[in-house]
């Protein structure tokens, strides 16, 4: 029997009197892709922020591979194997695309503590960086300054940086948000390939239901901070309450999500 990569137990987050996430329980098995959906303000990003260490939970525990990581700072959680992307692009704008990945790789390999090597001559890291760029299909952009590449390519670059930490669990926060339909198709295809390779366990939030149903093995539906339903894409599609939650999306702003 395989053990879950991630176990979430009774996780809650309150901001003053407002409950953003309430009593979430979840197990993520190795190599599966789990999607978290819900209307704006459902608590998805707050949930991510707790799993990745950006926020401290008010209650509950987060266990990664049997190790309690509740409330650890982001750099420690990243070291232990959780890596995430953000809703807004979060890259190093003045570096080249390749250097962006090199930074993450030298952090991962412990080169970042070396004061007297010459970073630009580290061919091992450079080759590895190009490998990750190839996986995302953006290796042709490697010499470009990261701030000048297209929005969609920036998002792919961020995914390359997330994968470069060799994570046990990859959190993607709305990976296709703001993309053109073409870029969305390309990105969905790429994530599907990466998931299919069996190297990664993904947790994805997404507003685009086509993307969700295309990628997810399992879906957790959140509503006003609570778990509304969890099941396979088929079950979710046919669940009456889920449909109501989505139809009622407009007047459902009780809880504002924290800033991404």
């Amino acid at each position, binding site marked *: 029997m395989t053990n879950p990569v991630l176990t979430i137990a009774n996780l809650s987050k309150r901001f003053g009197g407002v409950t953003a996430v309430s009593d979430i329980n979840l197990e993520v098995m190795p190599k599966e892709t789990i999607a978290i959906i819900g209307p704006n303000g459902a608590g998805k990003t707050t949930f991510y922020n707790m799993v*990745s260490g950006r926020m401290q939970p008010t209650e509950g525990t987060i266990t990664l591979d049997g190790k309690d990581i509740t409330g650890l*700072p*982001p*750099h420690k959680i*990243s*070291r232990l194997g959780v*890596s*995430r992307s953000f809703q807004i692009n*979060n*890259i*190093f*704008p*003045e*570096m080249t695309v390749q*250097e962006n990945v*090199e*930074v*993450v790789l*030298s*952090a*991962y390999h412990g*080169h*970042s*503590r*070396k*004061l*007297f*090597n*010459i*970073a*630009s001559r*580290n061919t091992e890291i450079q080759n590895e960086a190009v490998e990750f760029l190839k996986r995302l299909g953006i290796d042709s952009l490697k010499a470009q300054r990261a701030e000048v590449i297209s929005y969609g390519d920036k998002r792919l670059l961020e995914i390359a*940086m997330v994968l470069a*930490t060799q994570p046990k669990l990859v959190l993607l926060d709305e990976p296709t948000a703001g993309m053109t339909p073409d870029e969305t198709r390309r990105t969905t295809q790429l994530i599907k390939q990466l998931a299919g390779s069996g190297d990664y366990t993904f947790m994805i939030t997404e507003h685009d239901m086509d993307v969700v149903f295309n990628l997810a093995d399992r879906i957790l539906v959140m509503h006003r901070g609570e778990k509304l339903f969890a099941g396979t894409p088929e079950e979710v599609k046919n669940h009456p309450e889920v449909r109501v939650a989505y139809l009622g999306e407009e007047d459902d702003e009780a809880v504002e999500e924290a800033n991404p």
Partner: protein
Amino acid sequence: MKTKVLMAILAVVIAGLIAVPWIASYFYVFIFTEILILGLFAASFNLIFGYTGMLSFGHAAFFGIGAYATALVLIHLEWPFLVCLLVSMGASALLALMIGFLSVRLNEVYFAMLTLAFGMMVFAIAYQWRSVTNGSDGLAGFTLGSFGLGLDLTLANPSVYYHVVLGIVAIAAIVLYLICRSSFGMILKAIRQNPERVSFAGLNVRTYRLVAFVIAGTFAGLAGGLIAPFLRVASPELLHWSMSAEPILMAILGGTGFFLGPFIGSAAFVLLETWITTYTESWMLVLGIILAMMVIFFRKGLLGTAIDWWMEVKK
């Protein structure tokens, strides 16, 4: 091709610097000694400012403590100059570790204010602890003995002292340059651009900021150790918060994005001050206008603008 031309220019500049005592008057030997020392002070500051993105308003604390350390050792222990400099670096490293430990956890304006506050405290201590620091008069009346390493150098001779300063600043600059080009230096640049992404790559940003702060403080202390025998005094002005503004101005004037920018800025600063004060008392007004122009029109500083212009012309 372009790098070859740049290397050639650099070689000419270095040869010119070595030749200063033979081709220029004593007056300019003093001027260039000051340029080199303040250039190192500004370059050490730029490691945290231009590379890591930390605007410290208290960098003079490390410069001043370095000057006092060398002066105290020369007065009380009469150790060789090289040992004095090591003591200066050690003292400023220790001070930087203490101030940095308490400051690097804060960002931007809070970090700037905290470093300013600590800088003022160090100034107040130097100003008031008369038994050790001789208060507002500062420490004077020390003489340089031997250099160390068995080298027979007449340090009291301004030309010899200039060459000693040139050699030490060159070595320090090479070490700083290597740090900037290392993987560690790359992480510092990454922290300036996006600290959050660095921490999500698994690094404790605070630790990296602290290490950079201590390295910068240590080299500022070395510059301070060089300035005390040059001025023949270690006085509280060296620790004053207005002294912390000088490396900021020099780095911006020369260009924060280039390793040699602060040295160019130091040269421009000292030479302009020398030339302009012979014509007018209001040197600060002229400096203010120049700096405003730099920030508005030439954001990359003198060196950055020159390199950009040259790349355009040579296309």
